[in-house]
Protein backbone atom coordinates (compact mmCIF):
# COMPACT_ATOMS: atom_id res chain seq x y z
CA UNK A 1 0.00 0.00 0.00
CA UNK A 2 2.95 2.27 -0.52
CA UNK A 3 2.59 5.31 -2.70
CA UNK A 4 -0.88 5.88 -1.31
CA UNK A 5 -1.92 8.83 0.79
CA UNK A 6 -3.33 8.32 4.30
CA UNK A 7 -6.85 8.65 2.91
CA UNK A 8 -6.22 6.09 0.19
CA UNK A 9 -4.85 3.69 2.80
CA UNK A 10 -7.88 4.33 5.00
CA UNK A 11 -10.24 3.68 2.08
CA UNK A 12 -8.58 0.34 1.26
CA UNK A 13 -8.70 -0.79 4.89
CA UNK A 14 -12.36 0.20 5.20
CA UNK A 15 -13.15 -1.69 1.99
CA UNK A 16 -11.57 -4.87 3.42
CA UNK A 17 -13.73 -4.62 6.55
CA UNK A 18 -16.89 -3.96 4.54
CA UNK A 19 -16.11 -6.90 2.25
CA UNK A 20 -15.61 -9.26 5.21
CA UNK A 21 -18.90 -8.13 6.75
CA UNK A 22 -20.64 -8.61 3.40
CA UNK A 23 -19.33 -12.17 3.09
CA UNK A 24 -20.44 -12.91 6.64
CA UNK A 25 -23.90 -11.49 5.96
CA UNK A 26 -24.18 -13.44 2.73
CA UNK A 27 -22.97 -16.74 4.17
CA UNK A 28 -25.64 -16.61 6.87
CA UNK A 29 -28.42 -15.15 4.70
CA UNK A 30 -28.20 -17.83 2.04
CA UNK A 31 -28.17 -20.45 4.79
CA UNK A 32 -24.66 -21.83 4.41
CA UNK A 33 -24.27 -21.43 8.18
CA UNK A 34 -27.05 -21.50 10.74
CA UNK A 35 -27.68 -18.02 12.19
CA UNK A 36 -27.78 -19.63 15.65
CA UNK A 37 -24.00 -20.19 15.54
CA UNK A 38 -22.76 -17.14 13.71
CA UNK A 39 -25.55 -14.52 13.83
CA UNK A 40 -25.11 -11.86 11.16
CA UNK A 41 -23.76 -8.30 10.96
CA UNK A 42 -27.11 -6.57 10.70
CA UNK A 43 -28.37 -8.31 13.83
CA UNK A 44 -25.09 -7.86 15.71
CA UNK A 45 -25.00 -4.11 15.01
CA UNK A 46 -28.64 -3.71 15.95
CA UNK A 47 -27.82 -5.50 19.20
CA UNK A 48 -24.77 -3.30 19.67
CA UNK A 49 -26.86 -0.13 19.29
CA UNK A 50 -29.35 -1.46 21.84
CA UNK A 51 -26.59 -2.40 24.28
CA UNK A 52 -24.88 0.96 24.00
CA UNK A 53 -28.12 2.70 24.92
CA UNK A 54 -28.36 0.79 28.24
CA UNK A 55 -26.90 2.59 31.30
CA UNK A 56 -26.07 -0.84 32.79
CA UNK A 57 -23.79 -1.55 29.83
CA UNK A 58 -22.01 1.76 30.38
CA UNK A 59 -21.31 0.61 33.91
CA UNK A 60 -19.92 -2.73 32.66
CA UNK A 61 -17.74 -0.92 30.12
CA UNK A 62 -16.50 1.47 32.79
CA UNK A 63 -15.60 -1.39 35.15
CA UNK A 64 -13.65 -3.31 32.49
CA UNK A 65 -11.86 -0.18 31.23
CA UNK A 66 -10.90 0.76 34.77
CA UNK A 67 -9.52 -2.71 35.56
CA UNK A 68 -7.62 -2.74 32.30
CA UNK A 69 -6.11 0.73 32.63
CA UNK A 70 -5.31 0.61 36.35
CA UNK A 71 -3.72 -2.82 35.92
CA UNK A 72 -1.79 -1.67 32.86
CA UNK A 73 -0.44 1.48 34.53
CA UNK A 74 0.43 -0.19 37.85
CA UNK A 75 1.97 -3.23 36.16
CA UNK A 76 3.93 -1.15 33.66
CA UNK A 77 5.30 1.33 36.20
CA UNK A 78 6.30 -1.46 38.60
CA UNK A 79 7.69 -3.64 35.80
CA UNK A 80 9.77 -0.84 34.27
CA UNK A 81 11.06 0.21 37.70
CA UNK A 82 12.03 -3.39 38.53
CA UNK A 83 13.64 -3.79 35.10
CA UNK A 84 15.68 -0.61 35.55
CA UNK A 85 16.91 -1.73 38.96
CA UNK A 86 17.85 -5.15 37.62
CA UNK A 87 19.54 -3.64 34.58
CA UNK A 88 21.60 -1.45 36.88
CA UNK A 89 22.44 -4.33 39.26
CA UNK A 90 23.08 -7.44 37.14
CA UNK A 91 23.78 -9.53 40.26
CA UNK A 92 20.19 -8.96 41.33
CA UNK A 93 18.90 -10.28 38.01
CA UNK A 94 21.25 -13.26 38.22
CA UNK A 95 19.90 -14.08 41.67
CA UNK A 96 16.20 -13.66 40.85
CA UNK A 97 16.02 -14.85 37.26
CA UNK A 98 14.87 -18.45 38.07
CA UNK A 99 12.00 -17.06 40.15
CA UNK A 100 11.10 -14.52 37.48
CA UNK A 101 11.23 -17.15 34.73
CA UNK A 102 8.99 -19.47 36.76
CA UNK A 103 6.41 -16.79 37.47
CA UNK A 104 6.55 -15.58 33.87
CA UNK A 105 5.78 -18.99 32.43
CA UNK A 106 3.07 -19.73 35.00
CA UNK A 107 -0.45 -19.39 33.50
CA UNK A 108 -1.44 -16.27 35.40
CA UNK A 109 -5.16 -16.95 34.86
CA UNK A 110 -4.68 -19.91 37.20
CA UNK A 111 -3.79 -17.41 39.91
CA UNK A 112 -7.24 -15.80 39.75
CA UNK A 113 -8.72 -17.97 42.55
CA UNK A 114 -5.94 -16.71 44.84
CA UNK A 115 -6.49 -13.11 43.74
CA UNK A 116 -10.22 -13.47 44.45
CA UNK A 117 -9.34 -14.80 47.89
CA UNK A 118 -7.03 -11.85 48.56
CA UNK A 119 -8.77 -8.97 46.80
CA UNK A 120 -12.39 -10.06 46.59
CA UNK A 121 -14.74 -10.84 43.73
CA UNK A 122 -14.80 -7.19 42.54
CA UNK A 123 -12.35 -5.14 40.47
CA UNK A 124 -9.39 -5.75 42.77
CA UNK A 125 -8.85 -9.36 41.73
CA UNK A 126 -8.99 -8.49 38.00
CA UNK A 127 -6.60 -5.58 38.47
CA UNK A 128 -4.23 -7.96 40.26
CA UNK A 129 -4.51 -10.42 37.38
CA UNK A 130 -3.73 -7.72 34.81
CA UNK A 131 -0.80 -6.47 36.92
CA UNK A 132 0.59 -10.01 37.16
CA UNK A 133 0.48 -10.26 33.35
CA UNK A 134 1.84 -6.81 32.55
CA UNK A 135 4.53 -6.63 35.24
CA UNK A 136 6.68 -9.48 33.94
CA UNK A 137 6.45 -8.58 30.29
CA UNK A 138 7.49 -4.98 31.05
CA UNK A 139 10.23 -6.15 33.40
CA UNK A 140 11.77 -8.45 30.80
CA UNK A 141 11.44 -5.89 28.01
CA UNK A 142 13.06 -3.18 30.12
CA UNK A 143 15.88 -5.49 31.15
CA UNK A 144 16.52 -6.65 27.57
CA UNK A 145 16.52 -3.04 26.40
CA UNK A 146 19.05 -2.06 29.06
CA UNK A 147 21.48 -4.73 27.97
CA UNK A 148 21.63 -3.08 24.56
CA UNK A 149 22.33 0.44 25.83
CA UNK A 150 25.45 1.79 24.12
CA UNK A 151 28.14 1.95 26.81
CA UNK A 152 29.98 4.73 24.98
CA UNK A 153 26.94 7.01 25.22
CA UNK A 154 26.80 6.40 28.96
CA UNK A 155 30.50 7.27 29.18
CA UNK A 156 29.95 10.37 27.05
CA UNK A 157 27.31 11.72 29.44
CA UNK A 158 29.42 10.80 32.47
CA UNK A 159 32.45 12.53 30.95
CA UNK A 160 30.41 15.68 30.45
CA UNK A 161 29.74 15.66 34.18
CA UNK A 162 26.37 13.89 34.20
CA UNK A 163 25.39 11.79 37.23
CA UNK A 164 23.18 8.70 37.48
CA UNK A 165 19.98 10.66 36.85
CA UNK A 166 21.41 12.38 33.82
CA UNK A 167 22.44 8.99 32.40
CA UNK A 168 18.95 7.60 33.08
CA UNK A 169 17.20 10.59 31.54
CA UNK A 170 19.52 11.28 28.60
CA UNK A 171 20.68 7.79 27.63
CA UNK A 172 18.94 4.83 29.26
CA UNK A 173 15.31 5.89 28.90
CA UNK A 174 15.55 7.15 25.30
CA UNK A 175 17.57 4.06 24.36
CA UNK A 176 15.03 1.62 25.77
CA UNK A 177 11.97 3.64 24.67
CA UNK A 178 11.31 1.39 21.64
CA UNK A 179 11.48 -1.66 23.94
CA UNK A 180 9.07 -0.02 26.38
CA UNK A 181 6.56 0.83 23.68
CA UNK A 182 6.79 -2.67 22.20
CA UNK A 183 6.29 -4.07 25.70
CA UNK A 184 3.29 -1.82 26.25
CA UNK A 185 1.63 -2.99 23.05
CA UNK A 186 2.02 -6.62 24.09
CA UNK A 187 0.90 -5.71 27.60
CA UNK A 188 -2.22 -4.14 26.19
CA UNK A 189 -3.25 -7.51 24.74
CA UNK A 190 -2.49 -9.14 28.10
CA UNK A 191 -4.49 -6.47 29.92
CA UNK A 192 -7.57 -6.91 27.72
CA UNK A 193 -7.35 -10.68 28.03
CA UNK A 194 -6.77 -10.53 31.78
CA UNK A 195 -9.65 -8.21 32.57
CA UNK A 196 -12.25 -9.78 30.24
CA UNK A 197 -11.39 -13.44 30.86
CA UNK A 198 -10.97 -12.70 34.57
CA UNK A 199 -14.50 -11.32 34.63
CA UNK A 200 -15.77 -14.33 32.71
CA UNK A 201 -14.34 -16.60 35.39
CA UNK A 202 -15.29 -14.79 38.60
CA UNK A 203 -17.13 -11.47 38.84
CA UNK A 204 -20.43 -9.70 39.17
CA UNK A 205 -19.90 -6.93 36.64
CA UNK A 206 -17.85 -5.97 33.61
CA UNK A 207 -17.95 -6.85 29.89
CA UNK A 208 -16.68 -10.39 30.59
CA UNK A 209 -19.51 -10.92 33.05
CA UNK A 210 -21.99 -9.64 30.46
CA UNK A 211 -20.47 -11.95 27.87
CA UNK A 212 -21.02 -15.00 30.08
CA UNK A 213 -24.64 -13.91 30.66
CA UNK A 214 -25.29 -13.62 26.92
CA UNK A 215 -23.63 -16.93 26.12
CA UNK A 216 -25.66 -18.54 28.89
CA UNK A 217 -28.81 -17.65 26.97
CA UNK A 218 -27.26 -18.71 23.61
CA UNK A 219 -27.43 -15.04 22.49
CA UNK A 220 -24.75 -15.25 19.77
CA UNK A 221 -25.46 -11.73 18.47
CA UNK A 222 -25.12 -10.33 22.00
CA UNK A 223 -21.79 -12.11 22.54
CA UNK A 224 -20.47 -10.76 19.25
CA UNK A 225 -21.73 -7.24 20.02
CA UNK A 226 -19.80 -7.26 23.29
CA UNK A 227 -16.71 -8.50 21.47
CA UNK A 228 -17.06 -5.51 19.15
CA UNK A 229 -17.02 -3.20 22.18
CA UNK A 230 -13.92 -4.96 23.57
CA UNK A 231 -12.21 -4.73 20.17
CA UNK A 232 -12.91 -1.02 19.89
CA UNK A 233 -11.51 -0.33 23.38
CA UNK A 234 -8.35 -2.35 22.60
CA UNK A 235 -7.95 -0.71 19.21
CA UNK A 236 -8.23 2.83 20.53
CA UNK A 237 -5.48 2.12 23.05
CA UNK A 238 -3.31 0.42 20.43
CA UNK A 239 -3.58 3.40 18.07
CA UNK A 240 -2.61 5.64 20.99
CA UNK A 241 0.46 3.51 21.72
CA UNK A 242 1.55 3.35 18.12
CA UNK A 243 1.39 7.16 17.97
CA UNK A 244 3.67 7.25 21.02
CA UNK A 245 5.96 4.72 19.33
CA UNK A 246 6.32 6.93 16.27
CA UNK A 247 7.23 9.86 18.46
CA UNK A 248 9.78 7.79 20.35
CA UNK A 249 11.48 6.87 17.08
CA UNK A 250 11.36 10.32 15.54
CA UNK A 251 15.13 10.77 15.80
CA UNK A 252 16.07 7.65 13.87
CA UNK A 253 16.85 7.87 10.19
CA UNK A 254 13.88 5.79 9.07
CA UNK A 255 11.61 7.28 11.73
CA UNK A 256 8.63 9.23 10.50
CA UNK A 257 7.16 12.26 12.18
CA UNK A 258 6.79 15.90 11.47
CA UNK A 259 8.98 17.69 13.98
CA UNK A 260 12.35 16.92 12.42
CA UNK A 261 13.31 17.88 8.93
CA UNK A 262 13.36 14.84 6.68
CA UNK A 263 16.78 13.44 5.72
CA UNK A 264 17.94 14.89 2.45
CA UNK A 265 21.06 15.86 0.64
CA UNK A 266 23.12 18.35 2.55
CA UNK A 267 25.81 20.65 1.42
CA UNK A 268 29.07 19.90 3.20
CA UNK A 269 31.27 22.76 4.29
CA UNK A 270 34.36 21.25 2.70
CA UNK A 271 33.20 22.45 -0.66
CA UNK A 272 31.01 21.34 -3.49
CA UNK A 273 27.63 19.70 -3.43
CA UNK A 274 27.96 16.42 -1.65
CA UNK A 275 25.83 13.53 -0.60
CA UNK A 276 25.15 12.47 2.97
CA UNK A 277 28.23 10.28 2.97
CA UNK A 278 30.47 13.16 2.02
CA UNK A 279 31.68 11.90 -1.32
CA UNK A 280 31.88 14.38 -4.15
CA UNK A 281 28.75 14.22 -6.26
Amino acid at each position, binding site marked *: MTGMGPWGRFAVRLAVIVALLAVWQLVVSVGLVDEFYLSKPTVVFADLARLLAEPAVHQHLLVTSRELLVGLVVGAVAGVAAGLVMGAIPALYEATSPVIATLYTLPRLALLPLFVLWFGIGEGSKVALVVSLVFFSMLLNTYSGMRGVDR*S*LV*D*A*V*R*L*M*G*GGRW*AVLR*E*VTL*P*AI*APWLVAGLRISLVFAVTGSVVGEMMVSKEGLGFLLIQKSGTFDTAGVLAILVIVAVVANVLDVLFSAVEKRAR*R*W*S*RDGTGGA*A*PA*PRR*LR*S*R*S*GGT*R*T*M*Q*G*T*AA
Partner: protein
Amino acid sequence: MNAVCELRGVSLAARSRAGAVPILHDVSFQVAPGELVCVLGPSGCGKSTILNAVSGLQLPGRPTGDILVGGAPRRPYNSDIAYMVQHDTLLPWRTVRQNVALAGKLRRVAVDPEALLRGVGLGDEADYYPAQLSGGMRKRAQLARVLAQDPRILLMDEPFGALDFQTRMAIYEVFLDRWTELGCGIVFVTHDLGEAIALADRILVMSRRPATVVKEFTVSLPRPRALRELVHFPEYRELHEELWSALALSEAR
Protein backbone atom coordinates in the same frame (compact mmCIF):
# COMPACT_ATOMS: atom_id res chain seq x y z
CA MET B 1 55.72 24.80 35.65
CA ASN B 2 51.97 24.68 36.08
CA ALA B 3 51.08 21.97 33.61
CA VAL B 4 47.37 21.38 32.98
CA CYS B 5 48.15 17.71 32.73
CA GLU B 6 51.15 15.72 33.85
CA LEU B 7 52.02 12.04 33.83
CA ARG B 8 54.97 10.86 35.94
CA GLY B 9 56.23 7.34 35.45
CA VAL B 10 52.80 5.90 34.68
CA SER B 11 52.65 2.15 34.12
CA LEU B 12 49.62 -0.03 33.69
CA ALA B 13 49.10 -3.75 33.35
CA ALA B 14 45.79 -5.25 32.29
CA ARG B 15 44.66 -8.09 34.49
CA SER B 16 43.43 -10.99 32.46
CA ARG B 17 43.09 -14.75 32.78
CA ALA B 18 46.47 -15.13 31.13
CA GLY B 19 48.01 -12.98 33.86
CA ALA B 20 49.10 -9.35 33.81
CA VAL B 21 49.54 -7.89 30.32
CA PRO B 22 51.65 -4.71 30.40
CA ILE B 23 50.05 -1.89 28.38
CA LEU B 24 51.85 1.29 29.53
CA HIS B 25 55.44 1.41 30.74
CA ASP B 26 56.89 4.41 32.55
CA VAL B 27 55.02 7.05 30.52
CA SER B 28 55.94 10.62 31.48
CA PHE B 29 54.97 13.90 29.86
CA GLN B 30 53.46 17.29 30.57
CA VAL B 31 51.02 19.50 28.76
CA ALA B 32 51.24 23.26 29.32
CA PRO B 33 48.18 25.52 29.17
CA GLY B 34 47.40 26.30 25.55
CA GLU B 35 49.74 23.62 24.26
CA LEU B 36 48.79 20.93 21.75
CA VAL B 37 50.67 17.69 22.31
CA CYS B 38 50.29 14.85 19.83
CA VAL B 39 50.77 11.29 21.00
CA LEU B 40 51.87 9.40 17.91
CA GLY B 41 52.25 5.66 17.80
CA PRO B 42 51.36 2.43 16.04
CA SER B 43 47.75 1.25 16.22
CA GLY B 44 46.87 -0.69 19.34
CA CYS B 45 49.93 0.46 21.28
CA GLY B 46 47.92 1.83 24.19
CA LYS B 47 47.60 5.47 23.19
CA SER B 48 43.89 5.53 23.95
CA THR B 49 44.59 3.99 27.35
CA ILE B 50 46.62 7.08 28.23
CA LEU B 51 43.60 9.29 27.53
CA ASN B 52 41.27 6.97 29.42
CA ALA B 53 43.64 7.08 32.37
CA VAL B 54 43.73 10.89 32.37
CA SER B 55 39.94 11.19 31.99
CA GLY B 56 39.25 8.76 34.83
CA LEU B 57 37.37 6.24 32.71
CA GLN B 58 37.47 2.63 33.82
CA LEU B 59 40.84 1.02 33.09
CA PRO B 60 41.72 -2.65 32.60
CA GLY B 61 44.02 -2.44 35.63
CA ARG B 62 45.29 -0.11 38.32
CA PRO B 63 47.85 2.42 37.05
CA THR B 64 51.03 3.13 39.01
CA GLY B 65 52.86 6.44 38.98
CA ASP B 66 51.23 9.88 39.16
CA ILE B 67 48.59 11.33 36.89
CA LEU B 68 47.98 14.98 37.69
CA VAL B 69 45.25 17.12 36.17
CA GLY B 70 45.54 20.82 36.99
CA GLY B 71 48.11 19.88 39.63
CA ALA B 72 45.79 17.50 41.51
CA PRO B 73 45.63 13.68 41.28
CA ARG B 74 43.18 12.44 38.67
CA ARG B 75 39.61 11.79 39.65
CA PRO B 76 36.80 10.32 37.60
CA TYR B 77 34.78 12.69 35.40
CA ASN B 78 36.87 15.76 36.22
CA SER B 79 35.05 18.89 35.03
CA ASP B 80 38.32 20.43 33.76
CA ILE B 81 38.49 17.73 31.10
CA ALA B 82 36.58 17.28 27.88
CA TYR B 83 37.10 14.09 25.91
CA MET B 84 36.42 13.58 22.22
CA VAL B 85 36.57 9.89 21.49
CA GLN B 86 37.21 8.14 18.21
CA HIS B 87 33.67 7.03 17.47
CA ASP B 88 30.46 8.97 17.34
CA THR B 89 28.92 9.57 20.76
CA LEU B 90 26.33 12.22 19.96
CA LEU B 91 23.03 11.26 21.55
CA PRO B 92 21.01 10.04 18.54
CA TRP B 93 17.67 11.08 20.03
CA ARG B 94 18.73 14.69 20.51
CA THR B 95 19.14 17.28 17.78
CA VAL B 96 22.58 18.73 17.23
CA ARG B 97 21.55 21.88 19.10
CA GLN B 98 20.21 19.83 22.04
CA ASN B 99 23.41 17.77 22.14
CA VAL B 100 25.52 20.91 22.44
CA ALA B 101 23.16 22.52 24.95
CA LEU B 102 23.23 19.38 27.10
CA ALA B 103 27.02 19.56 27.43
CA GLY B 104 26.74 23.09 28.79
CA LYS B 105 23.88 22.16 31.08
CA LEU B 106 25.71 19.16 32.59
CA ARG B 107 28.85 21.27 33.06
CA ARG B 108 26.80 24.20 34.42
CA VAL B 109 28.35 26.48 31.82
CA ALA B 110 26.27 29.11 30.04
CA VAL B 111 26.53 28.25 26.35
CA ASP B 112 25.10 29.61 23.15
CA PRO B 113 24.62 26.45 21.06
CA GLU B 114 23.81 28.50 17.95
CA ALA B 115 27.05 30.46 18.11
CA LEU B 116 29.10 27.32 18.77
CA LEU B 117 27.47 25.51 15.85
CA ARG B 118 28.03 28.49 13.55
CA GLY B 119 31.65 28.41 14.69
CA VAL B 120 32.09 24.86 13.41
CA GLY B 121 30.09 25.53 10.26
CA LEU B 122 26.82 23.87 11.31
CA GLY B 123 24.73 27.01 11.68
CA ASP B 124 22.01 25.66 9.38
CA GLU B 125 21.95 22.12 10.74
CA ALA B 126 21.17 22.88 14.41
CA ASP B 127 17.78 21.16 14.30
CA TYR B 128 18.92 17.99 12.56
CA TYR B 129 19.32 14.69 14.32
CA PRO B 130 22.80 13.11 14.13
CA ALA B 131 21.55 10.33 11.84
CA GLN B 132 20.64 12.98 9.27
CA LEU B 133 24.18 14.36 9.07
CA SER B 134 27.27 13.21 7.18
CA GLY B 135 30.26 11.81 9.08
CA GLY B 136 32.13 15.10 8.76
CA MET B 137 29.17 17.06 10.08
CA ARG B 138 28.84 14.75 13.05
CA LYS B 139 32.50 15.38 13.87
CA ARG B 140 31.87 19.11 13.70
CA ALA B 141 28.92 18.70 16.04
CA GLN B 142 31.06 16.74 18.47
CA LEU B 143 33.68 19.45 18.28
CA ALA B 144 31.03 22.01 19.19
CA ARG B 145 30.01 19.79 22.07
CA VAL B 146 33.49 19.59 23.61
CA LEU B 147 33.91 23.34 23.08
CA ALA B 148 30.67 23.90 24.99
CA GLN B 149 32.27 22.27 28.02
CA ASP B 150 34.93 25.00 28.13
CA PRO B 151 37.62 22.56 29.30
CA ARG B 152 41.09 23.38 30.61
CA ILE B 153 42.33 20.23 28.96
CA LEU B 154 40.92 18.55 25.91
CA LEU B 155 41.60 14.89 25.19
CA MET B 156 41.20 13.79 21.58
CA ASP B 157 41.45 10.19 20.44
CA GLU B 158 41.97 10.04 16.66
CA PRO B 159 38.92 12.27 16.36
CA PHE B 160 39.11 12.79 12.59
CA GLY B 161 40.54 9.40 11.63
CA ALA B 162 37.46 8.13 9.82
CA LEU B 163 37.06 11.15 7.54
CA ASP B 164 38.14 11.49 3.92
CA PHE B 165 41.05 13.82 3.13
CA GLN B 166 39.08 16.86 1.94
CA THR B 167 36.62 16.78 4.82
CA ARG B 168 39.50 16.39 7.24
CA MET B 169 41.45 19.36 5.90
CA ALA B 170 38.37 21.55 6.30
CA ILE B 171 37.73 20.38 9.84
CA TYR B 172 41.37 20.89 10.89
CA GLU B 173 41.08 24.56 10.09
CA VAL B 174 37.86 24.93 12.06
CA PHE B 175 39.40 22.99 14.92
CA LEU B 176 42.59 25.08 15.07
CA ASP B 177 40.64 28.35 14.89
CA ARG B 178 38.34 27.40 17.73
CA TRP B 179 41.23 26.07 19.80
CA THR B 180 43.11 29.35 19.42
CA GLU B 181 40.09 31.11 20.95
CA LEU B 182 39.67 28.55 23.72
CA GLY B 183 43.34 28.29 24.68
CA CYS B 184 43.09 24.94 26.47
CA GLY B 185 45.81 22.29 26.59
CA ILE B 186 45.23 19.36 24.24
CA VAL B 187 46.43 15.78 24.20
CA PHE B 188 45.77 14.57 20.67
CA VAL B 189 46.24 10.87 19.97
CA THR B 190 46.90 9.85 16.37
CA HIS B 191 48.74 7.37 14.21
CA ASP B 192 48.89 9.81 11.29
CA LEU B 193 52.29 11.50 10.83
CA GLY B 194 51.03 14.38 8.70
CA GLU B 195 48.22 15.11 11.12
CA ALA B 196 50.63 15.23 14.04
CA ILE B 197 52.98 17.68 12.31
CA ALA B 198 50.13 19.85 11.04
CA LEU B 199 48.51 20.26 14.44
CA ALA B 200 51.04 19.78 17.23
CA ASP B 201 53.37 21.96 19.26
CA ARG B 202 55.11 18.83 20.43
CA ILE B 203 54.96 15.23 19.25
CA LEU B 204 55.57 12.23 21.49
CA VAL B 205 56.44 9.08 19.58
CA MET B 206 55.29 5.96 21.37
CA SER B 207 56.66 2.45 21.19
CA ARG B 208 54.71 -0.74 20.59
CA ARG B 209 53.11 -2.35 23.59
CA PRO B 210 53.91 -1.77 26.40
CA ALA B 211 53.80 1.82 25.26
CA THR B 212 56.43 4.29 26.41
CA VAL B 213 57.63 7.62 25.03
CA VAL B 214 60.60 6.78 22.80
CA LYS B 215 61.23 10.21 21.35
CA GLU B 216 59.95 13.74 21.60
CA PHE B 217 59.87 16.34 18.83
CA THR B 218 59.11 20.04 18.96
CA VAL B 219 57.24 21.41 15.96
CA SER B 220 58.31 24.99 15.36
CA LEU B 221 56.20 25.60 12.29
CA PRO B 222 54.63 29.05 12.63
CA ARG B 223 51.03 29.53 13.73
CA PRO B 224 48.48 30.12 12.43
CA ARG B 225 49.37 27.34 10.07
CA ALA B 226 48.17 27.37 6.49
CA LEU B 227 47.71 23.62 6.28
CA ARG B 228 47.77 23.50 2.47
CA GLU B 229 51.16 25.27 2.44
CA LEU B 230 52.85 23.12 5.07
CA VAL B 231 54.37 20.61 2.68
CA HIS B 232 56.42 23.43 1.17
CA PHE B 233 58.27 24.10 4.42
CA PRO B 234 61.63 22.29 4.51
CA GLU B 235 61.05 21.77 8.21
CA TYR B 236 57.86 19.85 7.50
CA ARG B 237 59.74 17.39 5.28
CA GLU B 238 62.63 17.03 7.72
CA LEU B 239 60.26 16.35 10.60
CA HIS B 240 58.33 13.90 8.47
CA GLU B 241 61.58 11.98 7.78
CA GLU B 242 62.61 11.99 11.43
CA LEU B 243 59.20 10.85 12.62
CA TRP B 244 59.25 8.05 10.07
CA SER B 245 62.52 6.71 11.35
CA ALA B 246 61.48 7.17 14.98
CA LEU B 247 58.29 5.21 14.31
CA ALA B 248 60.21 2.55 12.42
CA LEU B 249 62.53 2.31 15.39
CA SER B 250 59.60 1.95 17.78
CA GLU B 251 58.14 -0.77 15.55
CA ALA B 252 61.42 -2.66 15.64
CA ARG B 253 61.69 -2.66 19.41
